[in-house]
């Protein structure tokens, strides 16, 4: 297998300025094409900005929106992952990431996990996706696309890899926080993500692409630090924190086979075991089966018994 040139568009989208962001996407697509990239990845909500609140409905696009069609048209001979607010036919709004290839929309992933805690309020404004699929691509390998918080749930990279993804792509709008001098890069958020990406690459023996935006929406600053991690867990590209730019790297697709032969973790996965135990846990949590692992005295669906009141 040959080498693939990846381009990561670590951009600062203008909040709510769909037209302006579309122009920027077209320009960067052209730039990536000129640089010989086979795949360009844009960050979460790169077409709209992140902190939209009630603007979400105003910048939403259906998948047949001519602006999206035009952007897809610009991908002949290459692949792009772009992200936007998708409006479904029944008028739900999703945070979506689409794989555009050879002029068409090849695959759409709707963000599954919408953080609604701490500084996040996504569930108020968006609907959560209901399915997770790896997708084949013109690149000759399976892709697994996920959005930001999706990767804070272990099952997502695991399912994508089992479903045939060899290149996992996470597009993010990750707000930087927890500035502590004790972190490796001075930013708690960055340390966490860096650990996650290396771990997923190693455990799924896949390439992992993390494309995070930069810039400022209201109070929050997005920290960039986009990365490409090889199946061995080694970083092959680490973009700078906070700087805007188009960052490219060549990856050797043969590394996937090499790693999977040397470390056959996926071969040894036990999906039938996982699905059986998940099935049991789901039944128990729904109170439909006796919970064999619960403490004595637990209520239906709970694993822990209440502490005696003091």
């Amino acid at each position, binding site marked *: 297998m040959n080498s693939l040139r990846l381009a990561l568009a670590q951009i600062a989208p*203008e*909040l*709510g*300025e769909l037209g302006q962001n579309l122009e920027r996407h077209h320009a960067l697509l052209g730039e990536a094409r000129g640089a010989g990239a086979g795949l360009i990845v844009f960050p979460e909500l790169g077409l709209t900005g992140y*902190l*939209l*609140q*009630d*603007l979400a409905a105003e910048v939403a696009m259906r998948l047949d929106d001519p602006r999206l069609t035009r952007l897809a048209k610009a991908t002949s001979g290459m692949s792009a992952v772009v992200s936007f607010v998708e409006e479904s036919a029944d008028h739900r709004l999703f945070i979506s990431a689409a794989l555009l290839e050879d002029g068409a929309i090849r695959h759409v992933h709707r963000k599954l996990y919408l953080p609604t805690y701490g500084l996040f309020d996504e569930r108020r404004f968006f609907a959560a996706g209901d399915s997770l699929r790896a997708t084949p691509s013109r690149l000759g390998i399976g892709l697994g696309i996920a959005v930001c918080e999706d990767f804070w749930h272990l099952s997502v990279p695991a399912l994508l890899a089992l479903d045939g993804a060899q290149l996992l792509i996470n597009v993010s709008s990750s707000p*930087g926080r927890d*500035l*502590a*001098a*004790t*972190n*490796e*890069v*001075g*930013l708690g958020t*960055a340390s966490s993500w860096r650990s996650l990406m290396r771990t997923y690459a190693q455990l799924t023996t896949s390439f992992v692409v993390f494309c995070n935006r*930069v*810039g*400022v*929406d*209201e109070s929050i*600053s997005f920290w960039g*630090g986009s*990365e490409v991690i090889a199946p061995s867990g080694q970083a092959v590209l*680490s*973009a*700078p*924190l*906070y700087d805007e730019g188009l960052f490219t790297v060549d990856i050797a697709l043969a590394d996937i086979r090499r790693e999977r032969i040397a470390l056959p973790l996926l071969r040894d996965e036990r999906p039938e075991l996982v699905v059986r135990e998940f099935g049991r846990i789901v039944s128990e949590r729904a109170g439909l089966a006796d919970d064999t692992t619960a403490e004595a005295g637990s209520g239906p669906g709970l694993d822990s018994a209440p502490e005696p009141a003091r």
Partner: protein
Amino acid sequence: MSERTPAMDGAGGDQDRGFELPPELAIDTDVARRVMADFIRGQLRQAGFERAVLGLSGGIDSGLVAYLTAEAIGPERLLCVLMPYRTSSPASRSDAETVVERLGCASEVVDISPMVDPFFEGQREASALRRGNVMARMRMTVLYDRSVTWGGLVVGTGNKTEALIGYTTLFGDSACAFNPIGDLYKSQVRQVAAAIGVPDAIIRKAPSADLWPGQTDEAEAGFAYPELDRLLFWRIDKRRSTEELVAMGFDGAWIERVDRMVAGSEFKRQVPPVAKLGPRTAGVDYLYPRRRPGAARR
């Protein structure tokens, strides 16, 4: 990504540094400066402004914000307004002038005495609290007026410690278009100020609202900033219970007193509520970014 050791400014210890920096509050000042510079530029750009104005007291908070703003947009786009009252300390004035000189930014001196004194004419009994509040609100008025003449947004200079305990004047010193240092504790303000080059004398002197001669924050409130910063950090940022804080060595009565100050000043940190009557109400179920597409001043 740049792999580097965290920037532990003044790693030589509190003695060399000239101020106390509790270790759990130490931040990477390079990252902090980058975030705050991007924040300042982003806020101005989204609003369609290129310039900024701030009130420079001679203290460390406004001094740091002046440095940060100059670093973010260039000193030529910054107007620092010095607004002494007749009882303000001359040292504050000269410290503020040093900052202006070092930065090479525009400055203006507006003596607020002729605005404040007539306000209290015939009211000799007016308390220091009332006078202090009026002074703070006169300064706000001057800044918002200069915001028009200078064509710049008012940059806030309040820190996290004073905001949390409510040591601010509502619609006075807390009034601003945006605030780059509002999430930095006083100790962290000192750390970043040292890293960015705010003059040593300003970093080392006792913080003061400078409302009357010899006033200092710490004497007035009966606390030392590093200890208060630590308490607030563990209480609020790290969600520690009273029992856990006591086990860490904090005094129970003091924890209770600080808790009361924080709870009692919640209103100062929030936008005033509007009575909900219509279908969509600002701040309740009409929620937009402060700067919407097409909102920027052209």
